[in-house]
């Protein structure tokens, strides 16, 4: 539905969006994920019509949207700051866009009430924005941007100001609303967990470029670069040199005097090519004896233990000083934990557990 075609946006000398091309599909829940300042808001503002691309075009349903002013676009935005009108009540805020569209009075009333129900704000309809809580304000902003039933809804860090519990509830609410209304959602966030939870597709951005755009599972399991692997979740990165074995398996020489590792990769590597091996902590098994059948096993001693309640993360120092993280579920009480500080342990994983990434 939306196509960015080689879009570049510069502010003076500074390039905020750098030759970016991406397609966003109908009824999709698309998340833009990236560190602060990478150009997420700028992308949204270009879609809403507040910025124009310096180069390239943005197509909405095949049509170049550049000449269409913001008030004529079938796009609504939920602002990072909510931007609720302080002089209007919750009801009037939600009705604001509908009134501009000259909706008949009766329909307008029904629509506003529907939105109030959807966001569970019925009791607050006649309050002013400064008389309600942060979470309620955020729902008013959502209701207001949904009221006109836009083809595309832009949400700029919508849950940034909420505490964790409310945030999770709202995430599910958002997904629910998206399913009910069938609107295409583009959500901006710098919280990877949030992006993974709500979105059907996630784009990871860095310095005005999209590094990878894929489903949350693919982004997590098969990141295409060290940047993405590192940005999403926790990861161990081991530098080394790859040597092709037979088929799709590679041998990785990573440290003097250490057994080489074995890993598979769909992406070909030449003999001796520098590579990064990335593996998630939860895919690394920790044991006191060397497991007999493991494709990869390294020895080290427990350096630190982070207790997270349901999980524990073990920081294991290898012989060459590298710290590797391994995560395991706390199925037993903490006092009966098998390993403790300074214990010698083995870390092991299968050949397909990690990904091999080029520089």
């Amino acid at each position: 539905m939306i196509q960015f075609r080689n879009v570049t946006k510069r502010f003076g000398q500074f390039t905020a969006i750098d030759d970016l091309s991406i397609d966003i599909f109908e009824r999709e829940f698309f998340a833009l994920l990236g560190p602060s300042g990478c150009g997420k808001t700028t992308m949204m503002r270009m879609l809403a019509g507040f910025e124009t691309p310096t180069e390239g075009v943005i197509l909405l349903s095949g049509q170049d949207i550049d000449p269409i002013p913001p008030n004529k676009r079938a796009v609504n935005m939920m602002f990072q700051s909510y931007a609720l009108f302080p002089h209007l009540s919750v009801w009037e805020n939600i009705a604001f866009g509908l009134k501009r569209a000259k909706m008949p009075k009766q329909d307008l009333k029904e629509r506003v009430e529907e939105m109030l129900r959807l966001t569970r704000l019925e009791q607050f309809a006649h309050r002013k924005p400064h008389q309600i809580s942060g979470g309620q304000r955020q729902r008013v902003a959502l209701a207001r941007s949904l009221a006109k039933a836009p083809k595309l809804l832009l949400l700029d860090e919508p849950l940034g100001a909420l505490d964790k519990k409310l945030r999770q509830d709202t995430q599910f609410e958002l997904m629910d609303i998206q399913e009910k209304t069938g609107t295409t959602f583009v959500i901006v966030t710098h919280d990877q967990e949030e992006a993974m939870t709500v979105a059907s597709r996630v784009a990871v951005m860095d310095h005005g470029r999209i590094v990878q755009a894929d489903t949350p599972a693919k982004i997590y399991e098969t990141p295409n670069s060290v940047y993405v692997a590192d940005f999403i979740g926790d990861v161990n990165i081991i530098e080394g040199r790859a040597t092709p074995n037979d088929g799709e398996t590679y041998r990785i020489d990573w440290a003097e005097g250490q057994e080489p590792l074995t890993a598979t990769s769909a992406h070909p590597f030449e003999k001796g090519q520098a590579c990064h091996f990335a593996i998630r902590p939860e895919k690394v098994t920790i044991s006191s004896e060397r497991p007999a059948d493991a494709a990869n096993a390294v020895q080290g001693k427990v350096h630190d233990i982070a207790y997270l309640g349901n999980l524990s993360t073990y920081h294991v120092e290898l012989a060459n000083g590298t710290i590797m993280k391994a995560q395991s579920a706390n199925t037993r009480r903490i006092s009966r934990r098998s390993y403790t500080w300074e214990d010698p342990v083995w870390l092991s994983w299968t050949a397909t557990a990690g990904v091999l990434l080029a520089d």
Partner: protein
Amino acid sequence: MRRFVLIAIPYLWLLALFLVPFFIVLKISLSDAAIARPPYIPQFDWAEGIWAFVRELDFENFIFLTEDALYWKAYLSSVKIALISTALTLLVGYPIAYGMARAPEEWRPTLMMLVILPFWTSFLIRVYAWMGILSNEGYLNQFLMWTGIISEPLIILNTPAAVYIGIVYTYLPFMILPIYAALDRLDGSLIEAAEDLGCSRAQAFWLVTIPLSRPGIIAGCFLVMIPVIGEFVIPSLLGGSGTLMIGKVLWEEFFSNRDWPVASAVAVVLLLILVIPIVLFQRNQQKQAEAEQ
């Protein structure tokens, strides 16, 4: 104890500089004119006691104000001039404040400086300068005749137009500053949100910018209107004999007629008239302060 002192200071200030003078003026307004020094009786005399003194006070001067049409016409004309010139000042001041609020950040202190700059010169000198500009042989007429737009000099000085020009010029900063303060606080994303929801630029201005700068507009209007009602210098220097304003009447009663009691009565009534807008102004400020919490 310290708290008490802190609270007492402003009240003492008010008592010494407002209430005491006010009661003196009120007392004079209830006295009778006399050829004496000071030019009114009765004078308080310890020997005769307070009752003899009070018995001689009466409302004669206030009744006199209602009998002579000059006074109520002057009050009415003052209020009219104040209302019109407030509207004119708003019309001129709002766009200036708006422009300032939208100017690049680094220019704003300079623009603010330019608005305040006239205060560095004596008010009287600036009004005299306007006489030089507006008179028949003044700079304005010289310039307009030089460009050929007019062949006869425009008569502006000593007309109501000159009074309006003088008032708008003098009170413009009082209008600009509160409006600028309100517009400066206005979150730019609100305008974008309005446009996003289907407003044109003009609609967004009308539906969002104006309502949100209303406290500033109201404050500015009161700050201009309240002093203009009692304004004396501008109408007497620029308005000529044709402009009737209560400030001028007051001055004449006081200095030309040496009728202190009537002049005081005029002042007391003026104060009563001003109490209404002042109270409204206070209510506006209070409401705004509450809304910001």
